């Protein structure tokens, strides 16, 4: 007996989301850290707006896009680490003994990442509203921003999952985070 692909994805996604929701230690830093970094940077680098040709009159508004990217990195690292842990504990072997399709396994695993990214996006936008930073494109722009975050989390999550499958080691996946973080600033 083989369950439909969609059911398999839904079941694995449910597990991934439950896992994420039951780990406050994953959720809290992924929201808090990008906001703290934003506060520090915008406080110290405000004089940069006086430079000729600087595109904004507030560094806070200028740098507000950065937490959205950093947040997805947190989510993606969590996705890779979760998969690596499943390999280490043998849970992936257990799942492999069911008729689950490999694609369903991966997509389901990344679902928690996407949920976390959407949650981060909503929190960041809410904080933006409070401190007076709003998307110029209005509600549509905000929705697009959250969708963009989800997509980005899928992409970064895919890299994390690939590394987890290659190494089967959670520490190796966590080592990816600083690398991507530095890459973020270079971009």
């Amino acid at each position, binding site marked *: 007996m083989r369950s439909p692909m969609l059911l398999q994805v839904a079941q694995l996604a449910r*597990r991934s989301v439950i*896992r994420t929701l039951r780990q406050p230690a994953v959720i809290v830093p992924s929201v808090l850290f990008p906001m703290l970094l934003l506060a520090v940077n915008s406080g110290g680098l405000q004089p940069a707006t006086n430079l000729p040709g600087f595109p904004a009159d507030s560094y806070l508004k200028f740098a507000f896009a950065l937490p959205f990217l950093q947040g997805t990195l947190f989510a993606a690292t969590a996705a890779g680490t979760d998969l690596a842990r*499943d390999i280490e504990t043998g849970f992936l072997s257990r799942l*492999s003994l*069911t008729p689950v399709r490999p694609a369903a396994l991966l997509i389901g695993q990344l679902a928690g990442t996407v949920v976390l990214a959407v949650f981060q996006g909503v929190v960041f936008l809410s904080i933006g509203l409070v401190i007076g930073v709003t998307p110029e494109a209005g509600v549509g722009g905000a929705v697009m921003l959250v969708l963009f975050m989800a997509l980005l989390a899928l992409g970064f999550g895919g890299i994390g999952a690939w590394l987890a499958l290659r190494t089967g080691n959670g520490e190796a996946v966590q080592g990816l985070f600083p690398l991507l973080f530095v890459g973020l600033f270079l971009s």
Partner: protein
Amino acid sequence: MVATISDETITRQERKRGSGIEVEGLVREFRKGPRAVDGISLSVAPGEIYGFLGPNGAGKSTTVLMLTTLLPPTAGVARVAGHDIVREGPKVRAAIGAALQEAALDPLLTGREHLGLQAALHGLPKQERKRRGEALLERVGLTEAADRKVGGYSGGMKRRLDLALALVHNPRVLFLDEPTTGLDPQSRSALWQEVARLAHEEGVTVFLTTQYLEEADQLADRVGIIDRGRIVAEDTPAALKAQVGRPSVEAVPANPKDRAAIQRTLERFGDLVTTQSSAVAVRLSRGDLTDVVRALDVEGLPVANLKLNAPTLDDVFLAKTGRSLEGAGESEGEQG
């Protein structure tokens, strides 16, 4: 009068049909190591409990990984439930249930969530998933703990949940890789009872690896003893022990100064056997326990304890490999 066969009997017969294991010349080599499994051949009949006994590193777990399609063999052929493990992996996986060496559970999920996930991935309809989950939770005694996160379960509870997960889709063949390692005697006994019931009442074929002599002796219909990747002996526990021969007699002197005299007396009945205590032991080749008691009485040698040791599977292992099973694998590689 028309003879009728109950549905249960029919189900059992259907389950038994084509649910054995056939292995021929199975080999597994790892890149930087010796052959973990070195050309083993065995056959497990439908509904039989086959005990795969050996020390750590003997090749037990590697064999299970190959038979459950999680590890491709380097050479050889194996059919599980009538399907080739290399060419018909999905069919093999649909027919088997497995509880591997470490209870692979998600500490953040509850027992009930584990069963729901496993049942859904096996394609059970929603109502059936719930019914089956409840029945299995009750069978393994986890109903009360069903909604607790598995991270808080004891070792025994995790093992029981592991077994329930392996049974969720009514497998015809069940692989249990050292299922009682680390369990307390009570949990171990409960698991043995459940495994025996599955095989003898439901006709499930059980392939059980263990390093516990008692487990293989009590539970298995037949035992295969594996050492360094090769099967060194295979038969029913009783037949294997009969191959080793006669029992030994062990006497603990009541007075330590009598030890030498007791040893001389016992040597009249057979060859000395090494013991780890102050006891004197001989493998009986002449006479029996009554003759030993009479001889000690005639010589006036009091003993604090006198014991007749029937041959064990460890004696079989010793006879076949020249080493004792207990501790035999400690210095060997840890590749299952």
